């Protein structure tokens, strides 16, 4: 069993250190902005000064998770769709504008995708398995399946999650490469998964990814494999509008998260908190159809009392 022990998000919603995301949830309006905690109380000044926002968010959410679960993480598995975009663009700017050979290295160092998970291990002084997965819109799900694999192999306290950040350059790709009407946003979600129930209220029943041109039958097949049907889902969270849902409650999570490649990690947090919001809910399904040609499917269930 894959019990969710704790979960934290830093997003454009008031989502950090909250009992239940649904109580303050609002559709993003025109003056939405990232709601940042006080990073200084989580990250030493000597480290903080260099870090881009996505790194600050990742470390802070992870650290809060570590403080809540006590047991030192014995695996870390992080997903990111586009990685550290701010530093990537900064270094591209440097190499195109600075003449000569002497270039500032900091943006380059922090441009690599695994800076997020690497900084988490550095900050927590954690020597465990440390993995960074990136598969466009299903980056969170591939990281989550690895985290579940770690639990399957016997790990007891696995940190998993995803992080992505918006840069203004993305607006240039709107309508052509990125077809969405939702605002580009930044977000991180981190969760701790364990084989022990402890105080957990919900567990991950299954998570699967599919990269294929043929995804039409994937949802019913996935549900059938895990012995349930669409009507059993008390909540269906999905990203594309084309999915004809017959669930009891159907939510397009991008309305709340905005668009970022690993936004389904926020949906995972929403799904978890639905079991707090709705005392009778038993199952929540996330259909991550953010990009065509790939699908992430995650099924959460309330723990038995």
């Amino acid at each position, binding site marked *: 069993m894959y019990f969710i022990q704790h979960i934290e998000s830093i997003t454009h919603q008031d989502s950090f250190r909250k009992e239940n995301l649904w109580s303050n949830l609002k559709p993003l309006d025109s003056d939405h902005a990232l709601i940042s905690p006080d990073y200084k109380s989580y990250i030493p000044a000597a480290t903080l*000064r260099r870090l881009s926002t996505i790194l600050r968010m990742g470390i802070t959410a992870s650290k809060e998770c570590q403080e809540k679960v006590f047991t030192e993480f014995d695996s870390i598995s992080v997903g990111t769709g586009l990685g550290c975009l701010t530093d990537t663009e900064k270094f591209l700017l440097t190499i195109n504008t600075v003449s000569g050979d002497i270039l*500032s*290295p900091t943006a380059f*160092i922090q441009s690599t995708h695994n800076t997020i998970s690497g900084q988490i291990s550095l900050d927590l002084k954690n020597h465990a398995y440390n993995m960074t997965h990136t598969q466009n819109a299903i980056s969170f799900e591939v990281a989550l399946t690895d985290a579940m694999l770690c639990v399957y192999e016997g790990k007891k306290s696995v940190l998993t999650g995803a992080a992505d950040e918006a840069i203004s350059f993305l607006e240039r790709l709107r309508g052509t490469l990125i077809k969405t009407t939702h605002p580009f946003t930044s977000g991180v979600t981190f969760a701790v998964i364990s084989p022990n129930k402890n105080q957990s209220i919900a567990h991950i029943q299954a998570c699967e990814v599919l990269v294929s041109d043929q995804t039409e039958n994937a949802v019913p097949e996935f549900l059938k494999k895990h012995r349930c049907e669409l009507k059993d889902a008390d909540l269906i969270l999905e990203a594309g509008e084309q999915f004809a849902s017959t669930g009891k409650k159907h939510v397009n999570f991008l309305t709340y998260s905005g668009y970022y490649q690993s936004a389904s990690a926020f949906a995972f947090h929403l799904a978890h908190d639905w079991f707090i919001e709705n005392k009778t809910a038993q199952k929540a399904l996330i259909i991550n159809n953010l990009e065509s040609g790939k699908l992430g499917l995650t099924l959460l269930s309330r723990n038995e009392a």
Partner: protein
Amino acid sequence: MSDLKENLKAQIIEQLNLEDLTPADIQDDAPLFGDQGLGLDSIDALEFIVLLDANYGIKITDPNQGKEIFQSVNTLADYISKNQ
């Protein structure tokens, strides 16, 4: 020389994003690296090389050279005035 040191301190703060510091917080002879001083590390040493190139036209090609030069604001200023 004191102008050079004051400029240097401002440039160090900017180049290394030492947002919480003002030039007055950096003593001329205080160690810049290690736990006793500002706590700077090997990445900052590379940023110092960028600073010297961009602001003073001084090129350091061997990072090992930096160990002596970047000890304090005094040693930096001394090196700049001799090599500019």
